[in-house]
């Protein structure tokens, strides 16, 4: 090793920890800002936008004609809605930082407790869906680049634009119709046991798989044209070996980037999928809370979905330099 190269390696080794620390710090800071943004947006949209949140909440529970002004005034005092906006925001943010998201208007239970009950179901669904989506998307992409049959390749390349055109709730309904009512293999609804997880996870997985299939298929195609692939072919390596052993490794990088980008979509898809399958979870909780105009629960679910979103993006961001050594840590 020449002197200059040794010096460069030593310099890189010495600088890397500081660069890495700065990178991790920035990513954590970004995650915190996302959660704060979601909280602030929820305050603006849920407490400032309606002319009177208390009346809105009371209306959804009765016929709305005989709301006692006395009760409205008392509830407004209780929620601090008679104070200035900045005071309300500061007080609510401080309470939320301490884990107090208030109580449900509907059943009076602690919002945090209701979220704690629902959260594991959504995480389970999102993870299972992500696993299925990654497997399915990768399989479609690999097969599309591997097959020599023209019609099969065209069908596989049409997979992504087709699935992207099917709304999440329809994917769920079609799966229920086919596998639960038609074939009778799996339960159509509920949240108990692994059998009830299969169809919802498949629904979320299908929604994730289209983008992964599209991006990976394109990356594989480009990698197979790259000079290194031509060199491997000249060496006598078969197309399948080049694809599976060499091109696939490079094509995983855009797929991982995409997972980070599509986490919001996965959570959104989980919200709709849970409703379609009548499964417990954050989505069901949110849907019920919106129907009942239960504002504290809506806010709590939104903030916790944002936390999930920011946390999983953080994980992807931190994994990224491990997968792609070429990435510059900024």
């Amino acid at each position: 090793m020449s002197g200059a190269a040794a010096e460069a390696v030593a310099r890189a080794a010495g600088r890397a920890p500081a660069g890495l620390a700065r990178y991790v710090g920035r990513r954590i800071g970004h995650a915190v800002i996302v959660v704060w943004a979601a909280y602030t947006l929820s305050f603006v949209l849920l407490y400032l936008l309606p002319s009177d949140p208390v009346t809105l909440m009371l209306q959804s529970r009765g016929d709305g004609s005989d709301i006692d002004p006395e009760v409205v005034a008392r509830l407004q005092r209780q929620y601090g809605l008679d104070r200035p906006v900045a005071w309300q925001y500061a007080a609510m943010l401080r309470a939320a930082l301490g884990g107090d998201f208030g109580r449900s208007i509907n059943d009076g239970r602690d919002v945090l407790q209701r979220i704690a009950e629902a959260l594991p179901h959504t995480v389970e669904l999102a993870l299972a869906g992500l696993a299925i989506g990654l497997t399915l998307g990768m399989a479609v992409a690999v097969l599309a680049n591997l097959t020599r049959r023209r019609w099969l390749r065209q069908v596989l390349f049409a997979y992504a634009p087709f699935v992207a055109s099917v709304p999440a709730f329809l994917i769920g309904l079609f799966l229920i119709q086919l596998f639960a009512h038609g074939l009778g293999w799996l339960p159509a609804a509920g949240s108990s046991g692994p059998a009830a997880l299969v169809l919802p996870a498949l629904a979320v997985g299908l929604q994730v798989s289209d983008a992964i299939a599209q991006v990976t298929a394109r990356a594989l195609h480009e990698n197979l044209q790259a000079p290194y692939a031509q060199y491997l072919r000249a060496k006598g390596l078969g197309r399948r070996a080049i694809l599976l052993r060499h091109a696939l490794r490079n094509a995983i990088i855009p797929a991982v980037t995409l997972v980070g980008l599509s986490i919001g979509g996965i959570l959104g898809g989980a919200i709709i999928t849970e409703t379609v399958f009548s499964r417990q979870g954050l989505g069901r909780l949110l849907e019920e809370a919106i129907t009942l105009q239960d504002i504290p629960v809506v806010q709590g679910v939104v903030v916790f979905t944002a936390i999930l979103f920011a946390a999983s993006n953080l994980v992807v961001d931190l994994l990224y330099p491990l997968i792609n050594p070429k990435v510059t840590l900024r």
Partner: protein
Amino acid sequence: MASDGILDLTPGLLRGAPPVPGPARWRSWLTPGHASLAAAILLLLLVALWAAAPQLFAPFDPYAVNGRLKLLPPSPAHPFGTDGLGRDLFSRFVWGTRTTLVAASAALLLAFAAASVLGLLAGYVGGLVDDVISRLLDILLAVPGLLISLMLVTGLGFGSLNIAIAVGVSSVAAFARVMRAEVLRIRHADFVTAARLCGVAWTVILRRHVFPHAIGPVLALTALHFGGAVIAICSLSFLGFGAQAPAPEWGNLIAGGRSVLAHAWWISVLPGGVIVLVVLAANRISRQLERIA
């Protein structure tokens, strides 16, 4: 770009194939790509006609209840079958088209209008205005779109117009970013500087000189979002936040079939299939627009 002008020295053979003369030209028009594009345009035209004049296409009254026609499977008289109250589903679907498509278009129009104003101000005025607007857009971009829509629906209440606003606001940020970038590109063009030197008011410069030149890519983006807007509107309406029963809307028609899916599959599946076809057609056309742009 440089090779297009008078300095183009590329030999003719390298510039691409010469135009195909005679009958072969016809054959090249009949490729699967063109056929699917034509089918997509025809389908969207048909759906637009449903929205414009449902009474000409719907064979029955969408609200007419008939106890003897409950849950009939599809037949020539009732192409989509009937629902639990004996209403003709095809008629209800055709009547629901207007509500759904108007909501999707209103959402895009709102997003386009708000994004234009925000993008123009941020890009042209710059400084503190740009900082404030850009941070606001960052916040909107950081939170998943569906959550923004659902919060707006909670704050505004239910209804077809409110879900249109909810979907519109959740896509403002993406459009405004593009608008701002375009304005930044045009702001220092010679004709803008010339107008400013002539003493034209800045509002007039924005309206007459900057806006018309910045609008192209944003309009293309709007067209690209049409399929997505239809999906978003149908999803919110499916969850029950759009038009309230008995008014028909694509999403709530499908939701109405959920409870009887086991023995009346057609209520959800047939309208759902048409929605998928409409979104596929919209996406096919946007892909073509993208290729042209």
